[in-house]
């Protein structure tokens, strides 16, 4: 279903102020969300100030904390970059969670199934397998949209549910960890695990993620491909008339965003979980949407947003341990935050 987006003629606004204004809006939204969060925390029976102190110390207060923040940030960053690119063209891939799980599944299957003779190459192959699996799952959505105008939001979401069922089946039967009491998949061999960066306790997947930032940024802003992606998002009819192959572009974007989500799953498996665990994703596919929006669909923005939300997640965990505040507060804050962000952006722009 092609969603009609009307574009009213753009009034003359000074472009130089745009980034400053966007940053201010983000800060306003953050502050408001934290205020509301404080209300939630008091409802939860804890007192806000000590809880927020845990939040801060749990996210940036120690080397360990920073490591936790970075660990949380990595999947958000990788998925977020892919979503930012796709969202630029108004291709709203909401099924990143499913692509994430399939990526982890493929990476795990490859890591477990291949003989150990591959050595360090095993990591590389399994990561690539993860990216390919996610990319394929994304391709389905893109193809359905390009060929038959099937709505991307719905199809990506339905496929996401289907993907999680596939994952559940595989870890229940073929790749089951028979020694575990609950539902748990097998562990991957040591050779397939990502080594840690000393000191912070973060795996080197962090560097993969950081490397992606300038690459995606460059693609978005300095290549004809990125130009066409942006054009497609601004005015799909004009884009088509001037020679942009919108169907192909949509497919490519879904493959990239699905592939990055799959890669994120593979990295999470190889760097953090070490085994095929049904709780591999902490709702990363959805939080990454918030990351992409907060990051204003730009690569550096997504990096900062991923760090922020990663800090929120890590701090939230600390809060739940230290102050007995349910982790769900973080989810609530995130939810409120998105709304405030939308409102702040719109009010700043004028109606």
């Amino acid at each position, binding site marked *: 279903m092609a969603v009609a*987006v009307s574009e009213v003629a753009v009034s003359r606004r000074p472009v130089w102020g745009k980034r400053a204004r966007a940053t201010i809006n983000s800060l306003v939204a953050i502050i408001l969300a934290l205020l509301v969060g404080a209300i939630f925390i008091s409802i939860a029976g804890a007192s806000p100030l000590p809880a927020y102190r845990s939040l801060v110390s749990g996210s940036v207060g120690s080397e360990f904390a920073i490591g936790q923040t970075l660990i949380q940030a990595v999947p958000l960053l990788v998925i977020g970059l892919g979503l930012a690119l796709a969202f630029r063209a108004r291709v709203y891939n909401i099924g990143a969670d499913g692509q994430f799980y399939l990526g982890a599944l493929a990476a795990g299957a490859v890591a477990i199934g291949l003989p150990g003779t591959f050595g360090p190459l095993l990591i590389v192959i399994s990561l690539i397998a993860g990216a390919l699996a996610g990319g394929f799952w994304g391709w389905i959505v893109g193809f359905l949209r390009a060929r038959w105008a099937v709505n991307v939001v719905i199809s990506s979401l339905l496929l996401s549910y289907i993907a999680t069922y596939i994952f559940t089946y595989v870890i229940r039967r073929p790749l089951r960890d028979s020694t575990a009491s609950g539902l748990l998949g097998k562990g991957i061999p040591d050779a397939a695990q990502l080594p840690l960066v000393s000191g912070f306790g973060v795996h080197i997947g962090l560097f993969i993620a950081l490397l992606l930032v300038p690459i995606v940024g460059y693609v978005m802003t300095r290549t004809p491909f990125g130009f066409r992606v942006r054009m497609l998002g601004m005015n799909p009819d004009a884009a088509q008339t001037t020679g942009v192959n919108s169907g192909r572009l949509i497919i490519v974007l879904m493959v990239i965003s699905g592939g990055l989500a799959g890669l994120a799953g593979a990295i999470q498996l190889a760097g953090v979980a070490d085994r095929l665990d049904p709780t591999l994703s902490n709702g990363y596919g959805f939080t990454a949407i918030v990351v992409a929006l907060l990051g204003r669909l730009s690569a550096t923005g997504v990096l900062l947003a991923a760090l922020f939300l990663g800090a929120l997640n890590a701090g939230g965990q600390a809060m739940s341990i230290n102050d007995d505040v349910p982790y769900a507060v973080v989810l609530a804050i995130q939810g409120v935050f998105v709304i405030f962000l939308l409102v702040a952006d719109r009010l700043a722009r004028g109606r």
Partner: protein
Amino acid sequence: MNWNEVIGSSALVPLFSSGVALAVPTATAAVGECFSERAGNLNLGVEGMMLSGAFAGFIGTYYTHSVAVGVLCGIGAGVLLGILMAGLSVWLKTEQVINGIALVLFAQGLTAFVYGKLFSTSSTPTISTPANLHIPLLADIPVIGPVLFKQNSLFYIAVAAMLGVIFVLYRTRFGLSVRATGEDPAAADAAAISVDRVRWIALLVGGATAGLGGAVLVVGQLGIIQTNVTAGAGWIAVALVIFGRWNPVYVILGAFLFGTTDALQLRIQAASGGVTSGFPYEFFQALPYLVTLAVMVAVAIGARRTAQPAALGAPFRKEVAG
């Protein structure tokens, strides 16, 4: 794996009866969403509205032991989210797709928090669902009787709501305005209709029905609550509107298809021997989603002309250029 147990001749009527019951929450939300989209609102927040309705309904019934209160709470929660959605889409006119996604994230976060706050993780709170009614005479009709006329009270409330929405859409002055607004808001505006007002109300109706659907799901059927209890039913509702081609009657039929598939997979799960068996029951768990996707694709392939309201998703701004 005893297939006869699942789809044998004696199993069919209970299957359809269950299918109809399972379809109702989604159908209610879908009919309301259809109404909302006919006015031009692309409301992707249905999942959040259903989830909130489910939670509010559960909480309402849990603390007052009254099904009626639960239902009202559910509707109320849906309306509140409808107000939020309308504030974003109709008043501020921000990008409707994003608004919907944001609303779902908001509702998921909030309900997870409330759940964690009110119910400790050790015990699973339950409420008792209302008993099935037995409508005299009608329930005795073979096949259709047990399927349609032996459901519980919430089922009939939901059905009444759906019929009410359909009636309003096609037989009232307001419904005519709704249909005009989604197709050609400029024309509606020229006919002295307040496009924004119509869209506000349509969104509130959509929110109310989604909240009702969520409440019916939890209070009328499941009797328990958990995070993400709606499991994508709201998204299915949006899909149903598309492949019902924005006609509420087809939407209901589509919901029935989805509900029956869901009932089928539940039975298969039960008959398959559970977690330890080798039977890939996850495939059947995924079946309703697969079927929904397949039908959506089939409709997209087959559609020669577009049935989508022309102004769907586009915020209306009065043209001022001379």
